[in-house]
Each structure stands twice: as C-alpha cells, then as structure tokens.
C-alpha cells in the first residue's frame, strides 16, 4: 500500500527485472543523461572562477536531496496527511530521524565553529530566527497553503521532477506570496520582530544539554506515535541479488528511517561546507530583485538583513541556493525516471487555482518565518532554534485545519 501515500496520482510500480522493454530502456537512458548533466554542471562550476568547490557541492547536495526526497517520498504534506487522515504515523519517522541526525551533526559542527556556546554569540548563519507570534502565523498559513496546493515548497520542487503539473503553478504562487510578505514585513518588524528574542537552546544549556533536550523531545514524539505505525508486510527470505538491490533502490519506497537519516546528513554536510539547508532563498531573492528593480520595494527592508534564515537579497545571479534547487529538481527527475514514477499529472481550472493560492500562502508564510519546512523547520530545529519548533507545530496545525476544512484538491 506504499503507492497510496504518494499524493501524486496513480503510479505503476517498477517493471520486473527480467523484462527490459524499450520504454524502460529509454527511461534509464534519460535518467542517466540527467545524472551526467548534473555531473558535468558540477565539474564546470568547480573550474569556473568565482564559483569553485562550494558551488558544485551545493549542486551535488541538491541532486542527492532530490533523489532521497523522490525515492523516500519525503514530502511534508503527504507525511502529515497520512497521519491526520489515515492515522498512519510511519512516514513521520522520516522527519523525526532527519531532525535527530541533524541535531547530532549540528552539535558536532557547532562545537567546532563556536566552541563556547554560552558566550552570547550565535553560530554563523545558522537558521535561528526571532521567536514571536509571527513565526506561528507564518507556519499556520504555510500549512494551509500546503493543503491547498498539494505539497510544501520542497515537495513541489521534487515533484516537479516527477511531472507534477501543479508544481510550477504553486511555485509561481509562492513568488507572489513572497511579494506580499515583503509588503507586510515592515509592519511586522516594527510592531513585533524588532523586540522578539532570538532564542537558541545551546546559549542557555550548552551543546550537550541542548542535544539532550532535542533528542528527548524527538524520542518522546517517536514513542507516542509508535502505536500508529501500521503492521509491516512480511519480507520474503532470500539471497541478495542484483534484481533485489534494484528493487530496493528503484522499486520500493525507501524506508523512512533511511530517508530521514540521509536528509539529516545532507543538511549537516551542507551547513558545514556551504550554508544551512533551505530552498526558498533563491525564490525569495527572485521576487525581491524583481520588485526592487520595478520600484515596488525600497533598497532596504528594515531589519530583514539582520536576521539569519533563508536570506533574500537583491541579486542578479544564480546563488548557491539556486544551484541547490536546480540540483534537487534534476536529481528528482533522474530518480523518477529510473523508478518509473515520472508521469505528467492532469491540470484543471480548479486544481490550478488552488495551487496558485496555496503557493501564495506558502510564500507569505515562508517569507515572514524566514524559511519553509526545510529552512525553518528542518534546519532550524536541527540548529536547536526555538523558532523552528514553533514553526513546525504551526505547520502541523495548519495542515490539520486545512484537511478538516477539506481544502485539498487532486
């Protein structure tokens, strides 16, 4: 019953190993081409002056993330919906594992970057945001937008690679949402955010204390959800053959624990080498640049550039974040082709419109929360930021309300 949790329409399983049809061969060929294109792009970036290893690392991390997202169906909306509607908590363990692995990794990296956690400084550019009702409102709105549009922003990015036709519309909607966010930013900053504390657990409890709290909370949630994990199917005994390996990698949905661990590790490696994992910085910057160029925004938005998060800036280039997103879509495309999950979905007036509106809600939420389910929830909580926990809880509430109000459309 794994396929029922995809949220991306009906999909057929991978072809049996023995019959390599022409279409299957074509799929593998295109998947290989996508991977070669990623590798070539990474190589070119590496040798380009002003780009270098950081840029290719960002691109390759994005590709790895795209593959993990696609093969593990790491879609925050689908995961939460499975739990809320079907009382299936299995997929949630992917998020919990990502946060646990991320927390351990961040503690290790932080210890190196900022040996003294309690000296009053914050680690460089980690996603530790201001704590106020704004991040809660942002999360709630973001959750509603997820239900309306059919996925969160990272979900739409990887499902773009699966041929999900609503994804480009929702992503365009998020550009509009970011614009609305910029318009409301000034008011929110002056009324609330300027005085909001930037709360960071290790600043009070040290790294060991913060990690202990972090793992205790995650462990408690994992324990509470255990009774909602459905019965596991029996696995036939047998030797490990190439066909079986291929089925594990390309046929079955990856185990949530494995997927979560991979996502958590990529987040840590990315923070160590480039910047914290996030997927909205380039999207928001696109909007901000467009609006600034057209005179709709002033050069500076009060306070915005002083917070850490999925930072937006007026830029006219593809940032490392843009490369990450590009890699994510391309990696997901390769994985979807190889596993026969690529299928153009149908568009209707209704599901296009809801994708657009949902995207706009997510854009606003991600703007005022300085990130989305990846940047603020995943990277924020992994970095022991209180803002990440509040955003996560609010997103859960938003998805819950959205589903109760039957806002989803296929």
């Amino acid at each position, binding site marked *: 019953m794994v396929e029922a949790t995809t949220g991306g329409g009906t999909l057929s399983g991978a072809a049996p190993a023995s019959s390599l049809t022409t279409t299957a061969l074509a799929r593998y060929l295109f998947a290989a081409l996508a991977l070669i294109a990623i590798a070539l792009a990474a190589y070119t970036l590496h040798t380009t002056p002003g780009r270098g290893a950081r840029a290719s690392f960002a691109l390759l991390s994005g590709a790895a993330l795209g593959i993990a997202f696609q093969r593990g169906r790491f879609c925050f909306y689908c995961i939460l919906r499975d739990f809320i509607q079907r009382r299936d908590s299995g997929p949630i363990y992917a998020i919990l594992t990502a946060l646990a692995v991320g927390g351990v990794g961040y503690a290790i990296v932080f210890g190196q*970057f900022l040996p003294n956690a309690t000296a009053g400084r914050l680690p460089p550019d980690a996603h530790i945001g201001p704590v106020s009702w704004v991040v809660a409102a942002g999360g709630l709105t973001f959750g509603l937008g997820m239900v309306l549009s059919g996925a969160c922003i990272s979900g739409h990015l990887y499902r773009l690679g699966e041929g999900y036709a609503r994804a480009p519309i929702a992503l365009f909607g998020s550009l509009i949402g970011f614009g609305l966010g910029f318009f409301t930013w000034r008011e929110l900053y002056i009324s609330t955010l300027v005085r909001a504390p930037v709360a960071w657990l290790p600043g009070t409890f040290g790294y060991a204390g913060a990690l202990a709290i972090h793992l205790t909370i995650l462990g408690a949630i994992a324990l509470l959800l255990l009774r909602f994990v459905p019965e596991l199917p029996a696995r036939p005994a047998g030797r490990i053959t190439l066909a079986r390996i291929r089925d594990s990698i390309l046929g079955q949905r990856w185990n949530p624990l494995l997927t979560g661990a991979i996502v958590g590790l990529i987040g840590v490696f990315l923070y*160590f080498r480039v910047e914290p994992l996030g997927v909205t910085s380039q999207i928001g910057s696109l909007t901000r640049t467009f609006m600034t160029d057209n005179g709709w925004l002033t050069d500076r938005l009060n306070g915005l550039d002083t917070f850490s998060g999925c930072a937006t800036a007026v830029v006219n280039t593809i940032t490392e974040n843009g490369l990450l997103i590009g890699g994510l879509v391309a990696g997901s495309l390769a994985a979807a082709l190889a596993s026969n999950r690529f299928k153009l979905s149908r568009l209707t007036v209704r599901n296009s419109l809801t994708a657009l509106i949902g995207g706009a809600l997510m854009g606003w939420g991600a703007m005022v929360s300085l990130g989305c389910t990846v940047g603020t929830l995943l990277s924020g909580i992994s970095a022991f930021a209180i803002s990440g926990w509040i955003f996560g809880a609010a997103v859960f509430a938003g998805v819950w309300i959205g589903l109760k109000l039957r806002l989803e459309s296929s």
Partner: protein
Amino acid sequence: MKALRLSLIVLALVLVAAVGGALAQETTTTETAAEVLVTTEWLAENLDNPSVRVIEVSVQPGVYERGHIPGAVNFVWHTDFVETLVRDIVSPERFETLVRAAGINDDTTIVLYGDNNNWFAAWGAWIFNIYGAQDVRLLDGGRVLWELEGRELVTDAPVYEEGTFTVGEARADLRALLPDVLAIVEGETEADLIDIRSAAEFNGEISAPEGVQELAVRAGHIPGAVNVPWGQNVNEDGTFKSVEELTELYAALGIDGSRPIVTYCRIGERASLTWFVLSQLLGYEVAVYDGSWTEWGNTVGLPIENPSGTIWGGQ
C-alpha cells in the same frame, strides 16, 4: 678543449653573478615590503613557528569557520575591533584581553589575512599598530590567493595559552578625527586627503553602493580630496602592486609623501587598506579618518564638494 672548458666556467660564473646580483637588487628594493608583507609560501613554511600568530579578519560570517589557515584565530571585525554603542575603535582593555587570548606576546609576529582583498585584515593591522604592536604583517593576496593555490584549510578553532601582549598608549598620529580633517580642509594643516571609494560615490552620483545600511544624507566628497579607489592598490590576483608601481601611481596624483596623508572611505574600514599601502609599504606619514563619509557627509555645516550636483532631499 682547455679553452672551451675555461670559457664555460667563466660563463657559468658570470651567470651566477648576474642572477645573484638581480636577486640582491630585488631584496633591497622590496625590503620595506618584506617586513610588512608575507607571501603565502612564507606563511605555509612558518605555520608551526611559535613566534608567528595568524589572525583571520573576514567580512563574511562563516568564512573562517568553514575553513581557515591552520592555527589561525578568528577576529570578528564588527564586534572585536569596535565599541559598537559609542562608535569607536575597541577600547584598550578589551583589545588587550582579546589579543592575549590569542596567545600573542609583545614579540609575536602577527600575520593578518581575510576575504575581500584583505580589507578588514588591513583594518585589523591599523588597530594593532594603534595599540603599539611591534611586528604586524599582512598575507599578500589574502584568503583568495591562499585558496587559489589550493593550500591547506582546517576547521578547528585553536586554543592558545594566554599571551602577555601589553597595549601601548594609543598612537594618535595614525588616526585623524573630524577636527583634524576640518583643519586640513580649512588650510590650517598641510596634508593630502585620499578618498578610496568608487568614482560614482566620490562624484556624488550615488550616496553609497546598493544594499548597504550605513548612509550619509549628502553625496560627494571632502573638499580637496583625491579619488583613488582602493582596487588600484592591488593586482588581479589580489596581491599588492610593487612598491615602484604604487609610488608611481600616487606620485602621478601629486602624492609623494612629502606631506602627511589622511585616507577615508564610507564607514572607515577600507581606508585602512590604502593606509597600509602608503604607510607600511611606501613609508609615508598616514592617518586614517575612520569617521569617514558617514560622519563628514552627515555633519551639519561642513563643506563638501559634489561635482554631480545631487542635492539632499531633491528629486
């Protein structure tokens, strides 16, 4: 045969003498530079030298943390080198504590480097000089060249035994305050003023580069200043131009060290790069006006020059 061998030996001797002479000449002409600049090669060989301490001062947060020269300590320019509330350079007490924590003694050779062409590393060098450090040098080419050459970077933050560095009385001759600059403008003091900002800022076409937070209400420059954008001091690979080239560059603009010099920029840091070039490499008498354009351009009643005629508040 004998004649041939003899002539070969003579030829070899002449060659050796010529190369040796050329080398000797090179060392004499760059002698000043050698005392205040270190090459990446020299630094790589001296990383284990206990009397050398390397300090990174980068503009971008996270750059040091994600990989720095082995053994280097991190000084954060916007907190470690300034008193943020009063807008002043770091107090001597706080500076002494900071420098001692880096394991620096009075006789330690301090080598600074950073991103963005050593902008803020040069500023750090200026502050070290103000507080009387004896041997302060910059890594020629800075972080960019070190990375370009594929040299080793590490991520562990080193811990050193506390040093015994003692701050001296702040050297007032390295720093120009607003009244000092006003005295130059009014002709009471003879000195050359150098504005190191971009030509567009100098001419008043723009008041600051896009996206920066610190602004002045007026655009233009201090009357009598000469515009030499900082980038003219360096080669394409980020290393400083040769002493000869730099001497020529400034002499062509009438600045030859015969009079004291004051450098300034927008918020006061980049001017230190030109201060370093003129005072440390060329040996001129130079002070930094760290109040710079954000002080001068904002101050009521001070004269400015604005060739492009942009008026405060005008549309």
